């Protein structure tokens, strides 16, 4: 366990050294600037739009971090040949994969938390400056704890994307890994269409293949509850829990497969 912690801490330190936290400054500037501009443009929908923008930016910034750091987690060590030094230490390959993954997830957790805090601060300012008559017309309260449901599922989705990037990183080059991870991310958001493919094709085989792909590919659209929370619609704890469990199970499967692939690689 200690070895996993050491590798994870190293990944986190490296991401700080790579100036990943700069994106937080960009996020804050984006939100502050848009909260002013949007108020002039949107006919009273500024709080809704700030929520949409804040949650979308959290997702996009996290996605970039997950993909562009995730794809280099293993392949960079191999390219730099630092993998030899690492594996000569008392660190198993499974611990190495787990540590790399945990380090990036920690980076993402810090990012997502800071972004969520920044979003709440902006929303608190908007609530403070708007009169109660305007606030009464909002679909959901300005400082709505339900936003955390969307943030939580974004985080689980990012954990899944990180696991996908790490998986490709164990056997492929960074560019190819980035392309394949992004491809799976896009496919994952179209995934729910595959579920009911029999409605658009007459071939039973094609429908069964599509149904199979629906189960094999990650169902990323399930993690998107942004519209619901912004409009104050209910997102049940049962849905949250089952979606989070699905994500974690998928992550576990990907990490195990990554470990198997990485264990079989010959670095001699």
């Amino acid at each position, binding site marked *: 366990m200690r070895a996993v912690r050491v590798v994870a801490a190293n990944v986190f330190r490296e991401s700080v050294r790579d100036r990943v936290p700069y994106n937080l400054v960009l996020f804050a500037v984006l939100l502050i600037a848009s909260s002013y501009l949007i108020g002039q*443009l*949107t*006919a*009273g929908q500024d709080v809704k739009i700030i929520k*949409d923008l804040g949650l*979308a930016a959290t997702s996009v910034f996290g996605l970039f971090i997950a993909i562009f750091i995730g794809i280099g987690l293993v392949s960079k060590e191999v390219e730099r040949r630092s993998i030899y030094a690492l594996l000569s230490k008392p660190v198993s390959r499974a611990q190495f994969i787990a540590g790399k993954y945990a380090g990036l997830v920690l980076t993402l957790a810090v990012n997502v938390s800071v972004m969520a805090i920044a979003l709440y601060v902006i929303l608190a300012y908007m609530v403070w400056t708007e009169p109660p008559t*305007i606030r009464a017309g909002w679909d959901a309260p300005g400082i709505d704890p339900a936003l955390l449901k969307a943030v939580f599922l974004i985080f689980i989705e990012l954990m899944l994307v990180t696991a996908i990037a790490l998986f490709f990183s164990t056997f492929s080059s960074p560019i190819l890994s980035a392309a394949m991870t992004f491809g799976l991310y896009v496919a994952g958001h179209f995934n729910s269409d595959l579920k009911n493919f029999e409605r658009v094709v007459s071939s039973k085989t094609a429908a069964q293949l599509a149904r199979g792909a629906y189960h094999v590919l990650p169902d990323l659209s399930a993690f998107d509850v942004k519209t619901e929370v912004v409009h104050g619609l209910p997102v049940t704890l049962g849905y949250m829990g089952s979606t989070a469990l699905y994500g974690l199970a998928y992550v576990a499967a990907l990490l195990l497969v990554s470990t198997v692939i990485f264990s079989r690689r010959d670095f001699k």
Partner: protein
Amino acid sequence: MAIVAGVAFAAAISIQLSRDRWYPRDDPAREQILYVTSGNALQRIALSFDAVLADVYWIRAIQHYGGDRLSGPRAQTKYQLLYPLLDLTTTLDPYFNIAYRFGAIFLSEAYPGGPGRPEQSVALLRKAITVMPQKWQYYHDVGFVYYWRLRDYQSAALWFQRAAAQPNAPNWLTPLAASMLTRGNDRAAARFLWQQIAKSEEAWLRRSAERSLLQLQALDQIDQLEAIVQKYPVPSGEPHTWSSLMKRGVLPGQPVDPVGTPYILDPATGRVRVSEQSPIYPMPEEPRPVQ
């Protein structure tokens, strides 16, 4: 090095400013392009960012409406993107309540204040009802469009009854539906409906309702002024003028509408109307009596 970079950057900006002055690219036809016409396709392309894209289209709809409203007469192209933009907005974010209500009010507004397309308002509101069938406000808005724009009091009454049947509906909807059937041309009903809309939390909706209430007030004043003109006729062959009524002591001064613009008196017929210079011009078409 930093100075050279600064100079290069300043040069780029000045070249850009000069180019915009010498070779302007303000092409009105280009502004009318919708880019993507299928909301469903756009929803797919947006991945999980459909709500943000809906916000972008909402801002485009506001800009389009505001820009066309302030622009000069361009009857051919005015407001032609308003419905598609609102349709795209509400396809991308089906719970975008204010986009439906904005459409209900402004799509049905007669030219030049809007495109004068009440059927598009109804289509947008019907779309809202399929997504949120328990929101009485949408049924009310459909009833309002039938009443105020289409003058179809039977349909208006039906929609007000449907609104009354929804959860949390206010208790004034049932008597309103009844009054539609018996007294469709009643100005009091119109005033009551606009007063309800004037209570909205949305500033633009309140402003629109306040303007309509002023128009109704002007209609009342026009009725009173025309009655005075009929009561004190001018000698045969002479034109109707405010000054003749003032000289005879019938009126203390030239009558003005609720926003302070003088009313126009037709010299030949004695009919009174709101000036084209008035902020409340053009006036709405008066409801017709129930047949």
